[in-house]
């Protein structure tokens, strides 16, 4: 029966081509859309983790409450022992301390007078330790556009866009004007040894990066750090694992804090996960919800179009079905044959659509799409180059709806077969 129906579909293109094209296009778009959304979310999560929150982040309780304002007066102190404990207790994560800060970068002229000033947001990261993961996490070596990575104390990297605006060349000296941990004005000279382009507008505009030891010195934060970031060794965020680590760490430190009477618990360390920091949980939930809604609406629209196509087909095949009924073919048999035809169209269309969609998504994963032009004033940790991402789910996201939509469309439109009256058939056929 299947071979017979397939022959019919192949020979009568008007019966198969239009539904096939609709399924093909619908599935293709669903697959591509899913891969792009997936890629965008992954890029956002990755950039947020690498530049801001880590997979987990340790801060003092007070700092965590105001972390958006970077309150370095509430930073963690006694970093060495805290790092030792983290490395010992949670070996499946890489730990690295960071100091985020804001300030002004002042460029002197030949007389030492201010030539130009620009606001900067900076990071003190461990650039010099052999075991430090920062160079690879921040992808610093590849991000350097001009100059080199700092090798000595007193050296600094600056965002390429900011450096170009101020006409800063590698080798120039700049003065960082910031605020120490105690709130005093801090004035420190740095040599800009290189410029960076991370491909994240918010970072490239006004970021400076120096070794954490220099920033500690500049901001009077000896053995201190604003935060300690933890990254899973495979660099894949797993909310379950991250939550388990955070919960274990927090319960241990709550016990220590409760045992140490008289100590100010406002400065006890607390750990938060990437998902629960910076409002990312709500954001990701929204993205999940809206991507589900978009794909749902898309599948629904495809079903309606296919239902309509089925109806049109039924009308067009009105005579054929009438003859089949007149020669005694069972209504149920006709209905089933139409459903099998629709499943075949759905299967072939979904297969072709999935393959074509995957090919486009794969190209998008390799090359990406540059949103730099439309994100010039963005403050989001969102990379300019967004790549699609193919996951096992991308293989089925379009296939099942493509198959179901044709089936449902035909199932609903085919009900009309049961409404045909045999007694009226000849009259209908004569006319």
């Amino acid at each position, binding site marked *: 029966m299947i071979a017979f129906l397939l022959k019919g579909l192949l020979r009568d293109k008007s019966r198969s081509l239009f539904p096939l094209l609709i399924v093909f296009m619908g599935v293709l778009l669903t697959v591509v859309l899913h891969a792009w959304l997936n890629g965008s979310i992954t890029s956002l999560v990755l950039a947020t983790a690498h530049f801001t929150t880590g997979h987990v982040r340790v801060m003092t309780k007070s700092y965590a409450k105001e972390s958006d304002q970077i309150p370095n007066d509430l930073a963690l102190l006694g970093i060495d022992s805290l790092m030792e404990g983290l490395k010992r207790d949670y070996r499946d994560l890489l730990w690295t301390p960071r100091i985020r800060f804001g300030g002004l970068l002042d460029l002197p002229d030949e007389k030492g007078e201010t030539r130009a000033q620009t606001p900067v947001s900076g990071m003190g990261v461990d650039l010099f330790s052999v075991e430090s993961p920062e160079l690879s996490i921040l992808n610093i070596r590849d991000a350097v556009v001009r100059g080199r990575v700092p090798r000595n104390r007193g050296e600094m990297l600056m965002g390429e866009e900011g450096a170009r605006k101020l006409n800063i060349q590698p080798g120039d000296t700049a003065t960082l*004007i910031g605020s120490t941990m*105690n709130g005093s004005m801090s004035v420190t000279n740095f040599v800009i040894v290189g410029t960076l382009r991370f491909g994240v507008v918010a970072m490239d505009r006004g970021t400076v990066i120096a070794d954490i030891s220099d920033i500690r010195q500049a901001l009077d934060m000896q053995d201190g750090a604003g935060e300690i970031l933890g990254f899973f060794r495979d660099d894949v965020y797993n909310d379950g694992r991250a939550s388990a680590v955070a919960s274990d760490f927090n319960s241990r430190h709550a016990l220590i804090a409760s045992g140490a009477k008289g100590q100010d618990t406002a400065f006890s360390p607390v750990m938060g996960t990437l998902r629960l920091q910076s409002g990312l949980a709500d954001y990701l939930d929204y993205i999940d919800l809206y991507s589900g809604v978009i794909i749902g609406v898309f599948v629904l629209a495809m079903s309606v179009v296919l239902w309509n196509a089925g109806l049109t087909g039924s009308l067009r095949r009105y005579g054929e079905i009438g003859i089949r009924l007149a020669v005694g073919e069972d209504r149920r048999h006709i209905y089933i044959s139409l459903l099998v035809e629709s499943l075949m169209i759905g299967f072939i269309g979904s297969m072709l659509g999935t393959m074509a969609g995957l090919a486009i998504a794969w190209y998008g994963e390799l090359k990406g799409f540059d949103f730099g032009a439309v994100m010039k004033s963005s403050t989001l940790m969102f990379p300019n180059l967004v790549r699609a991402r193919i996951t096992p789910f991308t293989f089925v996201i379009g296939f099942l709806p493509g198959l179901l939509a044709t089936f449902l469309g035909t199932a609903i439109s085919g009900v009309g077969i049961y409404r045909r009256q045999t007694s009226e058939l000849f009259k209908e056929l004569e006319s």
Partner: protein
Amino acid sequence: MTRHYPVLLLLAAFPCVAQGPSGDEILAKVDRNMFSEKKIVLSRMIVHGRRETRTVESKSWQRGTSESFTEFLAPAREKGTKMLKLSDMLWEFSPSTDRTIMISGHMLRQSVMGSDLSYEDMMEDPHLPNQYSAAVSSEEALGGRDCWVLDLKAKKQDIAYGHRQVWVDKERFVVLKENLYATSGRLLKTAEVRDVMHVQNRWLARTLLYRDVLKDGEGTEFHVDSVAFDAEIPDYLFSKAALRR
């Protein structure tokens, strides 16, 4: 009866005599008590931060109201940092970088040495009659001293504190308490004098607690260790070159 007419007329013609001095008169007397053409002040600033308390020592040379030179003496990290105010310009010299930075724009809102005092506060014209018109709103006793409570309204728009409430000692003409408000009416800072001193026939605040109410913390204490009015101050001190000396 007719003998009393001149007295009654006099009272009717000058009602203010019976009500005491006006707000502006009181403010002018406060101003005369506080200022001299030249002044050298040695002081300590005890900053109560959210985490720790630190003491910053400094020496200031002031000429008139628009020129001042300050050198920080302690703690070690701040030692040698100098600030120069000339009219509406402010520079800070950092000895570790050998750079002189002009403090302007939003940097003026930054705190001085982590205290509750901002650079903008330092830039204010300390002659209150130049900036505010005063009215006596009430009389109160404060720490056993009878005070006038003055309401000060800014004469200009571009001023950090649009409204001030000032408690002035009736006898010594020294300000004992002050509330500083934004133009919107929001309380921004408070100052409470805890101790006064008598120097060269003037009454001055020796210890005061200055508090930025928008910040957490217990405020900043200022202690004046010594003050010398009409002292000799060399002219070169009020130049940018002096910052590097």
